[in-house]
Structure formats: C-alpha cells, structure tokens
C-alpha cells in the first residue's frame, strides 16, 4: 500500500500493464488531465514509441486502436475530454462493441477507450458531457468508472487485460483524490460493487465522483441519526445487480446519485432494476439525484445548480425516509 492520488494510481496501473506485457501499447496525451496532477504522465515517457501522441482524428485513431487490438496488441486509448470520443462514436459503439461477437469469437478486441466525463467548473455546453449511459446501452462494451485511486489502477489493469472492448470514464475532479493503493500487480474484477459505507436505513447507489458526494451526504445524515449505506457499482456493464438488490433488501429504500442527465440515464437503470427485481423490498419511492435534463451553461452559478452534490443527495434521502 502506498498513498498516491488518482492520476498517479491510474498511471501506475498503465505502467504495470506495460511492464508485464510487451504487447500493451498506449495512445493519448494528458491522461492525467491538465491540472496539478498532469505530472503523473511523465512516468510514461520512458516507454518511447509504446506511447503515441495522435493527430486530432478521433475516428481513425479509435479504429487504429481497434484494428491493432485484433492483430496482436493490447491497446489503451485516452481521448481526453469525453465529447471528443463522440467523433469516434460509430467506431466505439458499432465497430468495437460488435467486433468480437460478430466474428463468432474468432477475433479478440483487447482495446480500452478511456476519457474524462462530467461537470468540471466552466466546461460549458460542449465539454461537460457524461456519456456513460450511452456506452452502457451499447451491447458488447464493458463500461467502468473508477471512483477511488485503487480502482483507477485496478480497473485500468483489468480493462487492458480484457479481450473485450472496454470504455473507462474518469471524472477530472477525482484526479487529485489521494488514498492508499495496493502496490504491484493489482487488478479489480469487473461486476463487483464496493460497499463504501455500511448502513441500515437507506441505500445510496453512487457512480464516479458522486461516490465522494454520497459519502459526504452520509456523514451529514449520520448526524441526524440516519444510517446510509453507500454502494459503488464500479462497473456499469457488467453490473453487480445482486449487491444492489441485497442492499435494498436490507434498507428498503433507494437513492441513486449520478451525473448523467436524469432522463434515460444511469440512475434510471438502477431504479428500474430495483422496481423490477427488488420491488418487494421497497418501502418508499426510489429517488434519482442526477443532472437535470438541460444543456450545461458556462456560468458557474448555473452550472452548480445542475451539479449533483452531497446536499442534494442528503435532501433526497430525507424525502425518501419521510415518504
């Protein structure tokens, strides 16, 4: 265990992958973002031409990564801001997602598409998208969202070693988050949720940065005598349905904290899962704390108004318990 920030942990995972397998190759720059954490990228310099700085041609670069993955390399491609990956949409959700399946399993597609998502204080209408629900609605893709430094390392490693196309979404405001990270070869299996906090009264399922907000909310609520359980699914596809249902069976109440636009987003999937398979254990209406369904304005106050946070999560929990 060493303490490091999220960006360092993710780069650490990439280095383990590079060191343990000569077929691993990376494309991208600014993997650690543009803030104080950007320095973490320096660790990749020694790998020379195994790390490519690509032209601004997202579609062809995504296909380069996919094609190379079919022909013997394990590719990790970082797009930068997630909206840039919209230029490679067909290439990720229609080419990469289908490649292995439609070959009858004769091809492998060990490619990871990584990107930043979310509201980031001034990103404005065109740089603030959280597109994880869209990827998760594209069969054939594995979709993962680390919320801690350890998971940043462990999920990146598992993604790179998976023979399926995987999409990994990182919230830039998590890059500076510090915590202990297991040293060496540490891989986190897909499809296993993490209980971030145990509780009896309500289940808060939270994704990505909202895990941090949910934990803050839980502290606030604890002072009011409300004991919240915080669950981090970590991977959207495959989703650990069993753990979510088990938690709701215990608490009888569900609040989902997520940054995708509220309609047709990730929170809706969790709510639907429980309404379908956990209905019997529900004592109150499900509550979604997500991004209101509107484009993202630049002005900071308006952006904050749209951003899910601890206070909004706590309010939703109180409403759920009052119901």
């Amino acid at each position, binding site marked *: 265990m060493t303490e490091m920030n999220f960006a360092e942990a993710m780069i650490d995972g990439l280095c383990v992958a590079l060191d343990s397998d000569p077929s691993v190759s990376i494309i991208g720059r600014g993997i650690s973002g543009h803030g104080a954490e950007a320095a973490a990228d320096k660790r990749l310099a020694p790998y020379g031409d195994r790390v490519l700085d690509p032209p601004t041609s997202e579609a062809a670069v995504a296909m380069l990564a996919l*094609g190379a993955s079919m022909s013997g390399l394990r590719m990790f491609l970082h797009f930068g801001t997630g909206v840039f990956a919209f230029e490679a949409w067909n290439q990720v959700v229609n080419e990469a997602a289908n490649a292995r399946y*439609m070959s009858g399993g004769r091809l492998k597609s060990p490619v990871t598409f990584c990107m930043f998502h979310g509201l980031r204080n001034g990103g404005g209408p065109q740089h603030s998208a959280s597109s994880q629900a869209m990827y998760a609605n594209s069969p054939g893709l594995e979709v993962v969202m680390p919320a801690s430094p350890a998971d940043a390392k462990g999920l990146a490693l598992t993604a790179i070693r998976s023979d399926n196309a995987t999409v990994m979404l990182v919230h830039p405001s998590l890059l500076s988050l510090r915590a202990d990270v297991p040293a060496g070869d540490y891989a986190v299996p897909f499809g296993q949720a993490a209980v971030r906090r145990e509780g009896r009264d309500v289940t808060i399922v939270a994704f990505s940065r909202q895990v941090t907000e949910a934990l803050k909310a839980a502290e606030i609520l604890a002072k009011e005598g409300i004991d919240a359980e915080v669950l981090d699914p970590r991977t959207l596809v495959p989703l650990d349905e069993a753990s979510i249902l088990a938690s709701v069976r215990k608490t009888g109440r569900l609040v989902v904290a997520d940054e995708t636009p509220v309609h047709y987003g990730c929170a809706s999937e969790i709510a639907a899962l429980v309404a379908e398979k956990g209905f019997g254990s529900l004592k109150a209406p499900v509550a979604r704390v997500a991004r209101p369904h509107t484009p993202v304005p630049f002005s900071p106050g308006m952006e904050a108004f749209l951003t899910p946070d601890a206070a909004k999560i706590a309010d939703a929990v109180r409403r759920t318990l009052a119901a």
Partner: protein
Amino acid sequence: MADAAQGTVAPRKEDRLNKQERLALLECMLRIRRFEEGVIHLAMTPEYEYVGRQHLYIGAEGAGAGACLALGKDDLAHTTHRNHGYLVARGSDRMRMFAEILGRADGTNLGRGGSWHICDPDVGFRSTSAMVGGSIALAVGSAYALQKQKSKAISVAHFGDGTLDEGIGYEALNIASLFKLPVLFMCENNSKPGQRPSSMLAAKHLSHVPAALDMPTKAVNGADVEAVHLAAKEAVDHVRSGKGPYFLQADLERWPGSHQVHAAFPTGVTDISLAWDEGKIEGKNADWTRTYDPIRLYAKKLLGENAVTRDELTALDRKVADETDKLRATAVKSPFPPADAAAKQFA
C-alpha cells in the same frame, strides 16, 4: 469521379507471368464468379430461408484476384460489405462462407455475421466492416500492430471509392502516411457518370487525395487482371520494404447486376464459351459482357496468345463450377444455430 486517376498504368510485362501464374489468376476469378452465382442461387431459392442483402463481387474479379494473388499468406486484410471476392481469392473455406451467408451454425462467424461481416483469421482476414470507411481505418490499425511487432507482413485495406467520401477515409490515409505504416490501400472505383455514383468527390481524380497526403498512387484498369496483378506486386514490394503506404486504384465498370440478387447475364450464368463464341453474347447486358467482363476478356486474351486451349478453359471452368456446387450443397445442410445461442454478450 469518372476518369481513371493519375499515375500511369503498370508496364504490361506479360512475360513476367508464366502459364501457371496466368491460369492461377483465371481460376481465382472463376472461383469468385462461381461462388457469387452460388450466392444468387441461395438467395433465390426459398427453401434455404435466405434473409438479408448481399453485395456481389461479380465484375470486380480482375481487381480482387489480381491484388490478392500478389499478397503473402501472412499479410493481413480488412474488407467492406462487398467482401466475398477477397475471401475466396485467399482461400477461405467456401463451404463455411456459404453457410455464413445463410446464417448457419457452420458459418465462418457461427452465423452471427452474415454476408457483410465474413471473418476468417486463418487466411489473414480481420474484421469486415459494413460501415463505409471502416475497413480502411481498421487496416491502418493492423499495420500499426505489424510495425510495432517489426513484422515483415503488410496490411491491406480493400475498399471502394465511397470510402473517400467519409472523413475517416481521409484520416486513415493521413495517419498511415504520417507514421509510414505498412499498409496497401486497394481501392476499387466503380463510380461512373450517369449511374448514381458510390462517391461524390470534387477531386478530379480519386488519387489526388492520397497524393496530397504525400503517398505514392497508381491507377489501373480493373478489368485487366494482369495489369492489376503486376501493379499490386509493385505496390506490395514498396510497402513491404518499409517505404510506407501505397494507394492502388482499380477502375471498374459496375456489373449491371451488382445491386440486385438476380443474375444478369445473357445466358443466365457465366458461359466461358463466350470467350470465343462472341456471337452468343446478347441481352440487355451484352455490352458489359463484351467489354468489361474481366473473366471473358482474360480467357479471350489467353486464347488469342495461344496460352490455353478452349478445352483447357472449359475443363477448368467445369472443375471450379463443380467444386463450388458441392461446397454449396454441403453448406445448405448445415443447421441454424440454436436461437438462444444469441444470448451472449461477448465472444
């Protein structure tokens, strides 16, 4: 995008090819033709429960055979929706191809891909994309892998002129040239004025686009299998020697039947004797058969040069037709996969 592109046609050095090589080209074209006629038969026979649409390679055999026979067995390829010809040319199991086109359990892709996505890594084929602009960019990816692996093999992108309408086609050409990747861009241009063309480029010649990206280009007559083959050999040598990508364009006259399932030959199916018995050529597509059918033209040429006899031609064609029929007959016996085999998310 009517005219042939810049770059001169490869010097015709017939002497470079011995009889065996020339017959190999002819047989390869016949294999493709008879295979596609087999697909037409399957599509038109209700009992085989054929669904979907296929894009036939008939009329382009000169380009496919000429290019594929210039490749080594380790070379990788990515193809488009119109992929049957390349797979047949490189020796993919035709029984499994027929089965795949019918969605049967013995298909190359276990019936999951169908005509548009036939995949056969055993003969160098990686993913076949039905998205215009898909194969060219995937081929650049395989070339990237080969470069990193310091392999002597090259990657080939088979695609049509439509790929140059798509921005990703341009991006792929640029990246290949930028990083000197070992990829052969094999473009089949079948757009002609009058028809609704499959590309709408403002460029005077298709090849002006790769040329602007600092890549060697050449255009050849796709109906002349030897011209394509000789040009492809030069191109492959260039790419294999590490000099970077090469853009080879084969100009084709679209077979009138290339959109329909229905065969559109004067005689219903190809009749090799039209190579010497031209009086028999008739029907609304007679012009195409007379002027552009690459098989008839090559057979006629070989006869004219006394490189083969009519009997040899007839025998060769019969052999190919018979083996194709047998393979097709086996394929139709293949069962459909169990329906619930669909419920798999990955491999």
